[in-house]
């Protein structure tokens, strides 16, 4: 919200408001000042000029040569506009002035000297478009500063008003805050509505539900003058980001900005009868609003209607048919109070927010309605010398708008950590217009109507005291944490450690959005796989790309490598640890699984000055898997169970099984997907369920003997059919190796000339050891023979010579 300092000054007894001090006081009391704009600086070197004479430019049909009096001298100015005449007052930008960020200079235009520029409203930043230059009122003093003459010599404060302070959504509200902060007196004036308030039988206001409309006040203005708003008023609106339209609309906006009470003006003659009804809309009832769109309403929307149809959506926008036009003679001014939550619902539903609805949403003070009408009347008299003896129609349900709260002085100290004197507390409340008296160790406070909504409890008053007293004056007190000891849980520590470990071996951590498109799941054929079918859908996604919560990390990591390949980074090892989501039964929160995804693509090793180039393959990925597996399962079994997934290469696709528990999947991305996603190079991927992985880790391992006796290591090379799996050979060796066999390591695979086609030689290193004695060669020889015999039987294996 924007307010100007001169406007605020109208309501304060202070002689002068120092912009920086005011801004800082507001910020430090909870009304953050986002920006302080010095308008005088913006219009520096722009003065009021008088057109003395003008003649056509000798070399151009479009330009004129003007003689302009600026008081101290007369200037020659070349001008492109035609909308002025002799004696007109205009805004002249002198050399050095800045107009739309361009510095004006004395120069020659088509051979003619021009000593300044006559500005248009657009050039002065007062409207988004304009025809010709700005013609000012003849009362403007020639030579005076432009900004002073038209009320632009002001300071604009851009404020952030928190949602609990609807009373601050107005100039008067801010003036009231400042008065409490700097101790200046607040002068708002009273509206003597007793005199003018009476019930007129000719006109009726009917309110269906006082819960939705606690108060509806209105006033009729007959034969309203059809004139423009004065420039100063327009300018104030402009400074507050409100576009001037016509006198009546400008006045309603002005009063809203000043008091916080939204007003709406109807063309009285366009209303069907002398009756206004505040009611709920009929289901599907529609109304054409002033922005020319047809709005279809739900039955919980509140409308203002005459006896024929709805004429406004309450608190949000007026109807087109009854809107003020050039021909309007008689105006019905509405100043009503609507129930905030209802306005918020409707405004959300029809997607329409306005300055009015924004104020109503936050629950404004019903006492404001008549006060605002009074302000409107005063203004109309001031700018148009218009007076009326008409009465105000006012329909409301009497409600309690005063609240008594008992504030314990001790409580203030307890919450703030600093004892504040009762007299000081009382003074702060008084300055905030909260009447109070000190009684024993408490303060009995009475909250006024305009703070009724946000000051309900003792703690609310503690906050008021704290923010006016100043947070910076409160002490900083070390917290005693007693017996609390900060630490990571085992789970958290493990996640952190895995993340670090993966980085240490050269992987880069990515973080992707949790969203995914249905399209993407389809592209990866994830939607066809069991366990990935029931996905969590967002009702109001940003767009289709963000429609679902992802059931796996794969598509995001694929996109990451592709994006980076497009940047010519082609050798990539990345990982992500993030939640994936699976649908639960209706009404329940979805399942959330913490997942680790790892993706490799491109080269594992670049060609170096003495290194060979090598592409990533499945075994690089499996190596990473073994690396993290060994870290937490030093003695655990790790197996890849063959299982085909549609997104993986059919021959390189499996389930990761650790200690007989399936914890993830691993494979090579299906070549068709590589092609369809235009990734252009092979990629390998695995995904591990971190919850399963970590929760299955055994507690501390028991100490095992450090072997005291040496082992006997035997290398064994056997020749078998190509199709025989290493895992099966290893299992067979283990089977026959007795408990003396402690370790098996595959160290070579050979295919080629020295052995038959379709066969391979597998070389294993076997390590035998006994913890109680030194082994004899002969024992091992016997075991080896047994192993060879069984391998021969089972796999038709023979020892390689």
């Amino acid at each position: 919200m924007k307010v100007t300092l001169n406007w605020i000054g109208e309501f304060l007894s202070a002689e002068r408001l120092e912009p920086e001090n005011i801004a800082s006081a507001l910020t430090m009391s909870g009304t953050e000042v986002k920006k302080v704009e010095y308008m005088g600086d913006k219009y520096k070197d722009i003065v009021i000029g008088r057109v003395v004479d003008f003649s056509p430019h000798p070399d151009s049909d479009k330009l004129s040569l003007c003689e302009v009096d600026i008081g101290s001298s007369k200037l020659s100015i070349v001008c492109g506009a035609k909308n002025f005449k002799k004696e007109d007052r205009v805004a002249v930008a002198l050399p050095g002035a800045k107009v739309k960020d361009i510095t004006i200079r004395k120069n020659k235009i088509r051979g003619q000297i021009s000593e300044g520029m006559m500005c248009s409203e657009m050039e002065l930043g007062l409207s988004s478009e304009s025809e010709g230059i700005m013609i000012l009122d003849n009362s403007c003093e020639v030579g005076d500063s432009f900004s002073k003459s038209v009320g632009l010599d002001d300071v604009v404060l851009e404020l952030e008003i928190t949602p609990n302070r609807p009373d601050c959504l107005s100039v008067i509200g801010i003036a009231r805050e400042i008065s409490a902060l700097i101790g200046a007196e607040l002068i708002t004036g009273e509206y003597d509505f007793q005199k003018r308030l009476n019930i007129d039988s000719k006109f009726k206001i009917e309110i269906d539900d006082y819960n939705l409309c606690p108060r509806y006040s209105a006033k009729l203005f007959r034969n309203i003058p059809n004139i423009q708003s004065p420039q100063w008023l327009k300018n104030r609106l402009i400074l507050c980001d409100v576009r001037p339209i016509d006198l009546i609309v400008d006045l309603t906006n002005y009063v809203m900005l000043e008091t916080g009470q939204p007003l709406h003006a109807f063309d009285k003659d366009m209303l069907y009868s002398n009756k206004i009804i505040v009611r709920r809309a009929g289901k599907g009832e529609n109304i054409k609003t002033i922005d020319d769109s047809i709005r279809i309403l739900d039955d919980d929307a509140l409308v203002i209607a005459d006896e024929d149809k709805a004429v406004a959506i309450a608190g949000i926008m007026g109807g087109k048919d009854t809107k003020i036009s050039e021909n309007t003679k008689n105006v019905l001014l509405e100043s009503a109070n609507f129930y905030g939550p209802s306005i918020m619902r409707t405004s959300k539903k029809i997607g329409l927010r306005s300055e009015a609805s924004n104020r109503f949403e936050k629950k404004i003070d019903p006492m404001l309605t008549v006060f605002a009408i009074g302000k409107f009347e005063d203004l109309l008299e001031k700018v148009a010398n218009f007076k009326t003896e008409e009465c105000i129609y006012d329909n409301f349900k009497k409600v309690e708008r005063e609240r008594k709260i008992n504030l314990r002085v001790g409580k203030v100290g307890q919450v703030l950590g600093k004892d504040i004197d009762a007299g000081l507390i009382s003074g702060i409340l008084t300055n905030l217009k909260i009447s109070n008296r000190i009684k024993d160790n408490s303060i009995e406070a009475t909250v006024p109507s305009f703070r009724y909504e946000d000051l309900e409890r003792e703690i609310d008053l503690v906050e008021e005291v704290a923010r006016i007293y100043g947070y910076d004056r409160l002490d900083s007190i070390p917290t005693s944490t007693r017996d609390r000891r900060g630490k990571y849980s085992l789970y958290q520590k493990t996640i952190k450690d895995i993340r670090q470990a993966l980085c240490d071996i050269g992987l880069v951590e990515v973080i992707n959005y949790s969203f995914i498109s249905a399209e993407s799941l389809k592209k990866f054929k994830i939607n066809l796989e069991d366990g990935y079918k029931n996905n969590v859908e967002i009702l109001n996604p940003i767009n289709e790309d963000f429609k679902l919560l992802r059931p796996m990390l794969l598509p995001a990591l694929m996109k990451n490598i592709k994006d980076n390949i497009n940047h010519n980074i082609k050798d990539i090892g990345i990982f992500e640890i993030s939640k994936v989501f699976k649908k639960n039964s209706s009404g329940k929160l979805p399942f959330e699984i913490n997942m680790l995804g790892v993706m490799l693509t491109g080269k594992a090793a670049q060609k170096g000055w003495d290194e060979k180039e090598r592409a990533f393959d499945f075994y690089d990925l499996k190596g990473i898997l073994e690396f993290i597996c060994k870290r937490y399962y030093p003695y655990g079994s790790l197996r890849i169970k063959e299982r085909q997934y549609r997104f993986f290469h059919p021959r390189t696709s499996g389930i990761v099984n650790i200690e007989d528990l399936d914890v993830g999947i691993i494979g090579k991305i299906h070549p068709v997907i590589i092609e369809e996603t235009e990734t252009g190079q092979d990629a390998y991927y695995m995904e591990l369920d971190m919850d399963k992985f970590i929760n299955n880790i055994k507690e501390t391992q028991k100490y095992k003997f450090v072997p005291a006796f040496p082992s006997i290591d035997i290398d064994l090379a056997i020749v078998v059919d190509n199709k025989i799996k290493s895992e099966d050979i290893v299992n067979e060796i283990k089977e026959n190796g007795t408990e003396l066999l402690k370790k098996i390591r595959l160290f070579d695979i050979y295919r080629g000339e020295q052995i038959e086609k379709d066969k391979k030689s597998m070389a294993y290193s076997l390590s035998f050891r006994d913890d109680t004695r030194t082994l004899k060669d002969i024992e091992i020889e016997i075991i080896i023979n047994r192993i060879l015999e069984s391998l021969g039987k089972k796999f038709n294996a023979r020892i390689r010579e």
Partner: protein
Amino acid sequence: MQRSEISKQEAKILFRDNTYKIMSKKEKNIDQLEKKIKTELDNFTRELETVKNLIELDKIRTKYIGKKSFLIKTLKNIGDLPDDIKPIAGKKSNTARNKIESDILKKEKIFKNIEYKNKLRKESIDLSLPGRSTGTGRKNIISQVVEEIEEIFIGMGFEIAEGPEVETDYYNFEALNTPRDHPARSLHDTFFISENILLRTHTSPVQIRYMESHKPPLLIIVPGKVYRRDYDVSHTPMFTQIEGLVIDKGINFGNLKWTLETFAHEIFGKDRKVRFRPHYFPFTEPSAEVDVSCNICGGKGCRVCSGSGWLEILGAGMVDPNLYSFVGYNPEEVSGFAFGMGIERICMLRYGIDDLRLFFENDLRFINQF
């Protein structure tokens, strides 16, 4: 074995023929031996000086203390000597052998040093060649900063709590003093899964969940992803927050100030000023926003701090007593404070990043910078 027998015999012959027989007196025998040893030593010393390399040194070693040398033979056959001569002969011979040995070692060291020097001089490599790559892994900037913040708070006695990213309306809003028609809801544009299930708009629901299952005193921080329906240069539909909660007997606003000042100094530096401004959050009262002084302009005001000299980093406040009624605490007995911050914002302030979307584009050229 054969060899040593032969030398034994030789030794016998030596003593019997040349010395023992001719000089029958003990003194004479010893004198003879001494003379012989002295001659050996003199010869050795003279020859050692002429030695030029390790091979020549080895020859001398064989000659004077090799198996066939006079001294070693003498020592080996000492047992054959008369008892009265034995100790003296042994001692003299040993001393001579030790001297020869140590002289040779000394010489050997000198030669070896020279040899190494010559050898290593030839083994030079190009130190400017690049080393073999070990990969360039990198922890995401967000994780780095989250972990850094976690460790700061762990140091202050906090534990880390977590909660679901998909939440119920109750935990995300209702129990945080934000009922359905509350105006503050419009600040959180929310993604809905169903009428009552949504993507959490902040990490605050974990406060309620944690309080439900724990009794004071409690000190926790809650890191995690949160979601809001907004997408432009300064908004992403997902971002990262860290929430904090401290509840105990007698916790006050002063404790809040101390904790967050300490934190801000740890993460931004001790030289930064910290200020607390009143603000509004539905679930804290009094509430505050916390700023640190702008490091770019030093507090004078610049583009980054939009002229204010301050950078907002945190929202905080005393836990609203209403919340305790949701979790069964007695607000007259315990009190506490809560705070929350956006991690990406902290990163942006620290590293001068100006586009929030960069955090989730996963451009390796971005990630690898940190």
